[in-house]
């Protein structure tokens, strides 16, 4: 009886020591989970999730504070990847989020007054211009976050959906008939 107890206690002590040692030895700096989540997020920095950017949303997901289904630009694909990473169930978009086609902002240069409010709002510095000068969107840098639309005092910014062209075209999932339609 005593020997059994001693053996169990001995095993417990050894295992505890190994665990404690590895916790110190293999300590991971920072929070890799946040980085992994951030890598999946589309980096539009649009704030549609209710957080002020992709990284804050990633931190909120990692801490369990936010759900994985609040990033419309990431699409269902993004939710699926997050679900895979976190080992949780896939869920459809919640909270009134709507999926929109990818778009870039377009500034009507006839109306723009050069107030600079839009490029203060742009999270990726994709608007070129200076005070009292007409502003232009650098379309290749625009993430389509729409953050510049509201600040514009003269409503000269509109979102132009990206049209599929030969360079951006994607093949569809092959679907073929199982039974020939007669």
């Amino acid at each position: 009886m005593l020997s059994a107890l001693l053996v169990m206690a001995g095993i417990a002590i050894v295992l505890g020591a190994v665990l404690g040692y590895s916790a110190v030895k293999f300590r991971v700096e920072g929070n890799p989970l946040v980085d992994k989540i951030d890598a999946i997020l589309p980096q539009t920095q649009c704030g549609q999730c209710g957080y002020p950017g992709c990284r804050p949303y990633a931190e909120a997901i990692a801490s369990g504070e936010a759900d994985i289904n609040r990033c419309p630009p990431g699409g269902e694909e993004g939710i699926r990847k997050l679900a895979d990473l976190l080992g949780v169930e896939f869920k459809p978009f919640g909270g009134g989020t709507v999926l929109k086609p990818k778009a870039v902002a377009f500034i009507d240069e006839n109306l723009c007054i050069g107030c600079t409010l839009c490029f203060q709002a742009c999270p990726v510095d994709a608007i070129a211009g200076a005070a009292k000068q007409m502003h232009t969107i650098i379309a290749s840098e625009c993430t389509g976050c729409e953050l510049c639309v509201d600040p514009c005092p003269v409503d000269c910014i509109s979102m132009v959906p990206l049209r599929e062209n030969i360079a951006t075209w994607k093949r569809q999932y092959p679907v073929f008939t199982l039974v020939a339609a007669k």
Partner: protein
Amino acid sequence: MPRFASFSLTNNMSAFFAPFISKPDTVSAIMLRVLLALLPGIALYVWHFGPAILVSIALASLTALGTEALMLKLRDRPVRHFLSDNSALLTGWLLALSIPPLAPWWLVVVGTAFAIAIAKHLYGGLGNNPFNPAMVGYAVLIVSFPAQMTHWIAPHGLGLAELDFLGQLEYIFLGALPPNVTLDAVTMATPLDTLKTRLHLDEPVNQILQMPIYGRLGGQGSEMVSLGFLLGGLYLLAARIVTWHIPVAYLGTLFAAAGIFHLADPAHYAAPLFHWFSGAAMLGAFFILTDPITSPTTPKGKLIFAAGAGLLTYLIRAFGSFPDGVAFATLLMNICVPLITLYTQPPVFGKKGPASGKEKGRP
């Protein structure tokens, strides 16, 4: 989510894609040719053991098709389309050939239904079953109904009595025998079974093999059936329906294992040729192990798979408690298929390691 969505195409063009030509070969034609290749063996079976096997095959065919249709209906698949692939028929035939012809009718029905419904369709139907359905059916029957699974007909001229076709039918369906005949008179232990029992009684092999149920190669009659399956198997090889890897590796390993033991101790271990031509070795080598769905896809993988099955067959026959080991060897190796396939991936073109950079063959 169904793997094969079935809905009409809106645009005729999208159903038309390269390549626009294809080899006129279909799954149902392949399965049909495998069924054809079984015919010589079946013919010899009838010749040596009477027509009872035809009844089993007919029963198994009907059950297989019925169960398949029912399962397809339940799974909401197009019944006619899938039924015409002949794969259910093949499962039924293989199972019927593995169990005693004089087994009661419900044994065939239960085995076939289990094979199709559980071993095939519960795993996702054609192409998705990890285990050979016919062998699953066989394993279930031999574990659940061991007594009925010994009703092997004695070959012509060896039994104490012989049933005519009507008598066989009566026994299969009603379990009734003519008044002056006992079951033991018309049935007989298989050559492998006899060998096993007699060896337990410490009789030497060569003495056992003198008994009348043994022929020149294996069992009287059953060796001819095995030859028939070998013939059909050679046709499958010639028609390129199966590759040489599995039959050669299987029969080779069985031969080698039996040969080593036979050389070491001929009194206790039968000769390799005996192992080839008794039991289900030939059927297994050409028809059961070669089932593409449950065997590895890579050439090296096929060799490993079949060699493992050959070794297991021999070990079960020589040291196990069952007389024959083909079914369990197949099922055990089926488990290993994904692993074998994964670890035997052939090198891809342009990724053959440093050797590909070697300037060989330059003038």
